[in-house]
């Protein structure tokens, strides 16, 4: 299967790291503790490895970092950047929470949309932002996603989407729920036109996003160890009063149960997406 070599991780770190070189000590450099292997990693080293620890743990990544990682340099053109949610239900504390999220993330909303080249192929791209209310889907997120699929349909472009979300944004009540219908209908039109949609599920992808556009892709990829599910694990535990199986709702668990196509380590994603785009030319 030598022709599949390009799909393999680019460095040993991605393979699980058993043979990875020891981390260079540089006293004074800030470090980050890996929640998986409990080692401290110099931040520069972590960045060089796309926020992947030598043990294979994938740290969360913000949307702009992902775009920089996956899109050809300088090719990203943002769309619908000015769309921003309101407070339709006058929900207590929501405007303040949204403003805090805008300040903290530097983004207007929990998803960034645009077009980009990936290995020279043009695609529509959406990337959700964990720093904005954990990627929750309100009217603005639903609108931007729907608009991107319509844009892609008009221009006959594929869509690649990175999901990270706690689910529907409860501060927008029923209107958030309706975004599940709105995005699904837009995905369906794009799908029926014979166009390609690839989703990359990242940690965490749950609730109303899982139950709508995240699971509706032609090809479903997931980052190693990502939590993916409909109900939160704690809710499942409380509802069933049973111990959860090992690895419950991880990407590996979904692969085993037949709900995703592949686990895609971060370092190999660009090559994998590039090849999938080449395999679907005209779609």
């Amino acid at each position, binding site marked *: 299967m030598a022709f599949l070599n390009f799909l393999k991780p680019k460095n040993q770190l991605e393979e699980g790291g058993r043979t990875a070189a020891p981390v260079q000590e540089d006293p004074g450099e800030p470090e980050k503790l890996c929640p998986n292997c409990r080692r401290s990693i110099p931040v520069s080293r972590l960045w060089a490895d796309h926020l992947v620890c030598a043990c294979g743990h994938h740290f969360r990544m913000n949307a702009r970092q992902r775009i920089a990682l996956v899109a050809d340099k300088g090719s990203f053109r943002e769309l*619908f950047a*000015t*769309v*921003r*949610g*309101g407070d*339709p*239900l006058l*929900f*207590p*504390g929501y405007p303040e929470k949204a403003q805090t999220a805008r300040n903290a993330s530097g983004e207007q909303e929990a998803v960034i949309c645009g077009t980009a080249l990936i290995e020279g192929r043009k695609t529509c791209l959406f990337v959700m932002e964990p720093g904005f209310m954990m990627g929750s889907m*309100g*009217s*603005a997120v*639903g*609108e931007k996603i*729907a608009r991107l699929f319509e844009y892609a349909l008009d221009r006959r472009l594929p869509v690649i989407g990175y999901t990270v979300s706690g689910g*529907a944004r*409860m501060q*927008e*009540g*029923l*209107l*958030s*729920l*309706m*975004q*599940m*219908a*709105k995005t*699904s*209908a837009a*995905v*369906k*039109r794009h*799908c*029926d036109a014979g166009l390609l949609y690839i989703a990359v599920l990242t940690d965490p992808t749950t*609730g*109303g996003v*899982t*139950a*709508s*556009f*995240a*699971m*509706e892709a032609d090809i479903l990829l997931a980052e190693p160890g990502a939590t993916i*599910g*409909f*109900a939160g694990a704690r*809710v*499942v535990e409380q*509802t*069933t009063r*049973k111990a*959860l*199986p090992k690895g*419950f709702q991880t990407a590996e*668990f979904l692969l085993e*149960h037949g*709900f995703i196509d592949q686990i895609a380590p971060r370092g190999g994603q660009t090559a994998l997406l590039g090849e999938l785009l080449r395999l679907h030319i005209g779609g």
Partner: protein
Amino acid sequence: MSGPTPYEAVKLARDNGRPTGLDYIHNVFQGFLEFHGDRRYSDDPAVVGGVAWLGSQPVTVIATEKGHTAKDRSRRNFGAPHPEGYRKALRLMKQAEKFGRPVICFVDTSGAYCGIGAEERGQGQAIAENLMELSTLCVPVISVLIGEGGSGGALALALADRVWMLENAVYSVISPEGCASILWKDASKAETAAASLKLTARDARRLGVVEKVLSEQNLGKPAFYRGLGNLLRRELEALSADPELIGKRYARFRAFGTNTLKEQP
């Protein structure tokens, strides 16, 4: 107009004495034949479906069913479907499409079941697939929310051309208790959450999420079911004659929340 408070409506919507999905099916339609199973894994008793007559019109009817007796309620998992329930519903919807029958859904569920098996068998994927397929189903679809409309688990049977709601039914993205415990770490603030979530039928009507709020004056009585049957028949006639059905369904859902955005390019 002084009706129940939002949290009182939640309690009314959950009341065990309310007519359930099967009560509607047996009283609004004639000659119901139940069809079982999703053809993939099992038959979910929390969702019932089949064919029936609405006057001289064959229809496909699908309902979430909570059951009435303790035993039946337990067997039906209190109306909380597993993925198989949604897959059965989708199978019957596609069958309706094949034979040109309209689809009528009755929704009364606290939500899709939050269980281990449900997650293992793709609860999120099952709901997502229903949403996608319903958005282009080539026959008229009417959904009536008759009690609890619990989030995605309800929406999976309510991406319809017309969505109606009983006056004391509720429809919400999350239960008020869940919302209160997440936002305020205090489930006892459910009353505040219920008011904030705007989950009553009147709220849903104001938000444009439902077209019609149905009076509960004669709830469960023959006149009530007769009236509902007449409304359904008239609406189906109009929808069946509409060549723009799918486009209008798309527009119906596409518009939600759009006018609430702050900056419109």
